[in-house]
């Protein structure tokens, strides 16, 4: 019962947050809605016993990525300018009817693809799959990461280091040359 309630709440939070991100006209608000959506996804993880994933989701997304994005939004001036360098009006930074129209078409096409695939997948899936009881996953994930997936784990650590250095190098202001 508790699990069902949690699932419903989380699903609502996730979908509501996502839809709010789509419709919000304020980038800052959109980012906060995204945060809500991430919380919801964490809840969904918790519902299917993925406790470690839920925690990671909270720590990395809610604690890291969204904060980073908020900083970026504040550094770049929020919702954005709609006037280009030559004083001409551009398409609004948060979109207008035309962009939503194209987005809708694309979304319909994409959903057709995905639904087709899901239909194929669900057709093969036995409807009576054994659903195991939830058990703590942290220890098993740790073991798996240090044994079967050690290569991927190391590669991702190198990638993180690269991203760290790359981000620092890219965003560092370069000195103007006066000569």
């Amino acid at each position, binding site marked *: 019962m508790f*699990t*069902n309630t949690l699932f419903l709440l989380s699903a609502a939070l*996730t*979908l509501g947050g*996502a839809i709010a*991100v*789509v419709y919000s006209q304020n*980038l800052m608000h959109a980012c906060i809605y*995204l945060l809500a959506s*991430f919380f919801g*996804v964490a809840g*969904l993880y918790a*519902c*299917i*016993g*993925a406790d*470690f*994933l839920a925690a*990671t989701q909270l720590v*990395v*997304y809610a604690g*890291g*990525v969204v904060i*980073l994005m908020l900083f*970026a939004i504040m550094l*770049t*001036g929020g*919702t*954005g*300018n*709609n006037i*280009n*360098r030559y004083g001409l009006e*551009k398409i609004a*930074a*948060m*979109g207008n009817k035309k*962009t939503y129209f*194209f*987005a809708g078409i*694309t*979304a319909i096409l*994409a*959903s057709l693809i*995905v639904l087709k695939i*899901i239909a194929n997948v*669900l057709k093969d*899936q036995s409807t009576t799959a054994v*659903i195991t009881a939830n058990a703590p*996953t942290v220890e098993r*994930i740790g073991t*798996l990461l240090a044994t079967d997936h050690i290569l*991927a784990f190391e590669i991702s650590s190198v*990638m993180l280091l690269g*991203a760290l250095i*790359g*981000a620092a190098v*890219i*965003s560092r*202001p370069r000195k103007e040359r006066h000569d």
Partner: protein
Amino acid sequence: MINLGSYLGISFALFICGILVMIARKNIIAILLGIELILNASALNFAAYTKFSNNNLDGHILSLFIIVTAAAEAAVGLGIVIRFFQLRESIHIDDAASLQN
């Protein structure tokens, strides 16, 4: 109620929302928000399949790697955005069209 179909549905909805955000917005950071939504949708899919098929946790590991990759991508992507903003005084996606023509 908690079954594979509902999870796939939620992740599908998240994915579509992400695509809508990616196309409809013209602000680069907003596009990044959309990308995050799509990545979350796929991560949720993996976790759901783990639960409802064999429960051997490989899906969880994949989800973890998706989260890690998303974090790295956010750092680098936002770095590029900041740099772009310094150069062009804009974060409008149509200003990043040097490949034009």
